[in-house]
Every structure is written in structure tokens, then in C-alpha cells.
């Protein structure tokens, strides 16, 4: 179970883009987000609701026009973009240490640090393979390994399984639930997938259309560890339905 301490929060987050010869585009308007230490917080919303803007701000790539962002711990977020963005010229191992390298860690040390994670991420024996030799599911896991290896307090995952086929997606969701169980990472998970949100998350934040704010927040009380059995619980279906209704309402 996650603690009660808030590790990442935004207060009244606002952002707008200037447009030539037009009114500025308001993308975020008073977005409040609260993520507890060790929880998986899903963020879900209709298309065009400014999710990428929110991600950029949380990842530290943009400064918000207004409001504040606070991240505890070392204050940094480990960002995993939608595309796996594994560099084809680097081995899986060297892709995994990319974040550490950028942070100034020596290659040798970094390689030692990530070595134990390979087995767990289902990539045992593929340390020296190139991304072109891996399946889609394996590449996503490799990208996640890279993200985790950075040892930052919060992981920011942008639709990590969106590009995968349905079966692989489900496999990876199951795997992530299990792996998270062991490590207890704090994760902000942006997703389109209702089932994924309910299955993985402790809390689901529903965004309104632009300009976005958090219209509703669900607590997902399903028991942990989440397994394939969780999917057939009546509570699961009820939560799914509730989330669906909220989304439909919000989108109209």
C-alpha cells in the first residue's frame, strides 16, 4: 500500500501558448494533481486535453505559465515517452544506462548498476543485443528499464503500452503490476486505456477537455497484488464502468 505522503503535486497549474494574431491558447487551467509516495497514479482524459503539455511540464521541459509544481525527493522525474526511443546504434545495455551516463555516471559503474535488472525485466541474455533484434514488447520493457535505472523519485510513463497489440499489452500490464509490487515505484501513468488505468492504478485522475483541470479523482481500492484474477472481479467491472461514464460525460 502506498504511503500518505505526497511526492508529486501540482497546484493550480496553468499554461497557455501565444498564437500569432489570435487569442493565446489556454491548455491547462488550474490543474491540481496529488500523487502519493509509492502509488501508481493514472491520468486519463479525452484527446486534445493537453496531456502532452502536462507531461512536458512534469518532465521539466517547459515552465508553466502559472501555478506550481512540486516534486519531492531529488525533485526530478524520469520520463518515458510514448515511442520507446531506443537508439538503434546502442546495445540494450548501453540504452539502459543512457540516463545514468547523462547524469555523469561512468559507463562501467552504470553497467554494473543496471545488470541485475535485466533478468527481472525479461531481457536476460539480451544485454548485448541491438534494439532491431527485439520484439515490440521487449523494447518497451527495455525503455522502462532505462527509465527505472535513472533512480529518480517519480516515473512518468506516457502511454507505455499504447503501440503494442492487445495480447502483448495485457501481458505487459500484468508484468508491470507484478514488478511494481516488488519495487514500489511512484508512477504517474498517462493512458487512454480505461482497463489499464483501473488495473494498474491506485488513483485515477480524469482530465477535462481543454483548458484542462482534474474533474474527478477515483480511488481504486482493488486488492494488491493485482493479477489476472483481478480482471474478473465484479468490483473491477464496476470501476471500469464508472470511469467510462465519467469520461463520456466529460467528453460531451
Amino acid at each position, binding site marked *: 500500500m502506498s504511503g500518505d505522503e505526497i511526492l508529486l503535486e501540482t497546484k493550480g497549474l496553468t499554461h497557455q501558448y501565444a498564437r500569432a494574431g489570435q487569442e493565446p491558447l489556454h491548455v491547462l487551467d488550474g490543474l491540481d494533481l496529488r500523487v502519493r509516495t509509492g502509488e501508481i497514479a493514472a491520468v486519463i482524459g479525452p484527446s486534445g486535453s493537453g496531456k502532452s503539455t502536462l507531461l512536458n511540464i512534469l518532465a521539466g521541459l517547459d515552465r508553466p505559465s502559472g501555478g506550481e509544481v512540486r516534486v519531492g525527493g531529488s525533485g526530478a522525474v524520469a520520463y518515458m515517452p510514448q515511442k520507446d526511443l531506443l537508439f538503434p*546504434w546502442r*546495445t540494450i*545495455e548501453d540504452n539502459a544506462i543512457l540516463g545514468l551516463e547523462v547524469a555523469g555516471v561512468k559507463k562501467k559503474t552504470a553497467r554494473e548498476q543496471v545488470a541485475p535488472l535485466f533478468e527481472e525485466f525479461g531481457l536476460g*541474455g*539480451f*544485454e*548485448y*543485443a*541491438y534494439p532491431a*533484434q*527485439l*520484439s515490440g514488447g*521487449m523494447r518497451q520493457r527495455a525503455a522502462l528499464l532505462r527509465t527505472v535505472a535513472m533512480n529518480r523519485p517519480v516515473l512518468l510513463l506516457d502511454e507505455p503500452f499504447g503501440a503494442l497489440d492487445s495480447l502483448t499489452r495485457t501481458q505487459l500490464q500484468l508484468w508491470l503490476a507484478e514488478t511494481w509490487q516488488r519495487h514500489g515505484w511512484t508512477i504517474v501513468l498517462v493512458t487512454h486505456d480505461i482497463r489499464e488505468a483501473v488495473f494498474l492504478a491506485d488513483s485515477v485522475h480524469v482530465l477535462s477537455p481543454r483548458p484542462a483541470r482534474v474533474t474527478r479523482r477515483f480511488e481504486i481500492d482493488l486488492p494488491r497484488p493485482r493479477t489476472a484474477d483481478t480482471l474478473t472481479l465484479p468490483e473491477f467491472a464496476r470501476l471500469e464502468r464508472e470511469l467510462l461514464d465519467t469520461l463520456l460525460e466529460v467528453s460531451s
Partner: protein
Amino acid sequence: MNSQPDKGARPPNLTRRSLVALGLGAGVTALTAWGGGHRPGESSAAAANDGIELTDVSLALDWTPNTNHTGVFVAQQLGYFAQRGINLQIVPYGSTAPETLISTYKTDFGISYQDGLTEAAVSGGDIVSVFAITQKTDVVIGVRADSKITDPAQLDGKTYAGYGGPMEVPMLQYVIRAAGGTGDFKDVTLNTDAYQALYAGQADFAMPEPTWEVLQAALVGKPLRTFDVTEYGFPPIYSVIIASSNRYLRRNGDIAKRFLAAIEEGYAYAAAHPTEAANLLIQANEAVLGTQVKLVMESAQLEASQYYKDSAGQIGYQSAARWQALTDFMFKNGILTDTSGKPIKTEPKASALFTNAYLPASVTA
């Protein structure tokens, strides 16, 4: 697509490989830059001549080495230049004309021709003729020996293969009209392939050198019939001359005199001993002339007997009358243009185009 599940070896460090490649490349570049830096052609103030300091003098050729250049190579091979403290540097023919090289001071001397030099000088180039190699006009009109053309008047309506020089057409028209024709013909620029074009029947006439291409044609069994332009009243010209720039002559008059003295001696030898001179020419240009021995021999004989000496038996001497005659012709036919490319209005002074002042005393006396 899950390939080898066992770890295998860590692939090589690509950064290191790139640096190695770059390093090798840089090394090779450095080697080529310094390694080949000292070539025989580069200037050296003191050549191997018992430690006596030699002055470098460059001479740009107008074509691949041929018997017009015999005297030069004879003098080189027999040491006439070295004796006079000169280290001769031959600059082979390239697509930059010797006249340009002379007037931009990239070469001290060059092989040129009377009409070419006149054009270059009139359009502003710093160039002057100092030595006449051929005293007889070394160009004729040539047709295949088996053609029906027996008179220049029959060249009307035929195809001429030439170099694209501005004097070719007026010269041919003059001759054809003097022979009774109208002077209308097709002009095609083919450069070196002109003679091959004749052989292949693609052109009807050209202007070959009697001392080279005409002999060559006979040797390969495709002889030419020739018409001498001077027989039709065209003024005789100095087909092959040695030229320099006025600036060079002003600054290096003494060297120029020594240079021409060596040249003079070389051509005198060639005139007296054509066979030996031919051998020396071939020896100096083995790659180019080694397979053309017969041609060189015949040509050397012809040049020695008819071309090197003028009617008074002098070598290198230039007559003012001959310079004037061609300048008149070129001016009257609007061939001479100024720096902006327009035909000039006043006739240039022929005396500014040549000088005998640097010839050895034995000649000018």
C-alpha cells in the same frame, strides 16, 4: 523475433572505432601531405651541379612534346642550360593556355604561336615573342589523299574540323577565295580529334601540321593531300615561337639571354644532327614518344631541313615584316579584340609584339 538468448560478447566500442578511423585518416593525410612534398619538379635553388647555384626557369609547353620542341630537349639533355646556370622546369601542356600562364606570371616562358600571341597581347596580356622556332609556316590545309578535292576552291560547302581558334575561319576563307571559291563551309570544333575525324571521314578538311600530323597520316596508311596557304597569298607566319612576359624580361634580362642562348644552341644542334636530336627528344619523353620513333625521326629530318633556319640561315630571328603582315591581316578581319571583347579600332604596333633583343649576339649581328 527473439534471436540468440545467450549473452554473447559485448559488441565493440563504436566510439573507439570511430576515433581509430579518424586517427588513421588523419595519419594518412599527414603522410601524403609531407611525404610526397619533395618532388623533382619543385623548385630547388641548388640542383645537383657540383654545388653551383642554378636559377629555375620554367617553360610551358603548348602540346605534348613533339619535334617543334626538339631544341629545348636537346639543350636539356646535353646540359646546355646547366652550363649557363639554369635549371629548366618543363611544364607539360594542360588545358590552361601557355599565353595565359605567361601573362599571369605563372610561367617564365612558354611555347606560343604568332596569331595566339597577337590576340593575347592586344586583349591586354603581358606577353612578347622572343624566339621563333619555326621559320616556315607550320600549318597546311589537309584533305584525305583519296578525296576528290584537288583545289581549295572545291572546299566550298564542305566540313572543316578545327580548334575553335578565331583565326581559322578567316584564314581558310582567304585561301579559298584566293583559289576562286566563295569561302562558305561548315566549321566544327573538335580539338584533338580533328585528325581522327578526317581519318574516319567525319570531316572533309582540317589544318594539320606538316611536321607532325601529315607525317603521322602517311605512316598509318591514311595519307593527306595538302595545300600550302602561302601559295595562295596568305602571309607566312611564325607557327611556333617562344614567348615571355615583359615583366619577366625586365627583371631577368640576363637570365633570359642565357636561356635563349641555350635554346639557340639546342636548335642549332637539331638542325645539324637531326637523327641524334630526335633520339634525345625521345629519350627525354620516353612515355609519350617511345612508341612513335619513326614519326619523330621523319619529323626531325623535315624540321631540320626546312623549318628551323630562315633564308639567311639564322635560328630564332624574327622579322618585323612578318609580324606586321599578320597583324595587318588580323586587324583588317576584325579578329583582334580588346579587353572587353570588342574589335579594336586602331591597329596595334607590331613592334610591341616581338623582340630579338634577347637572342645571342651571333644571331642578331
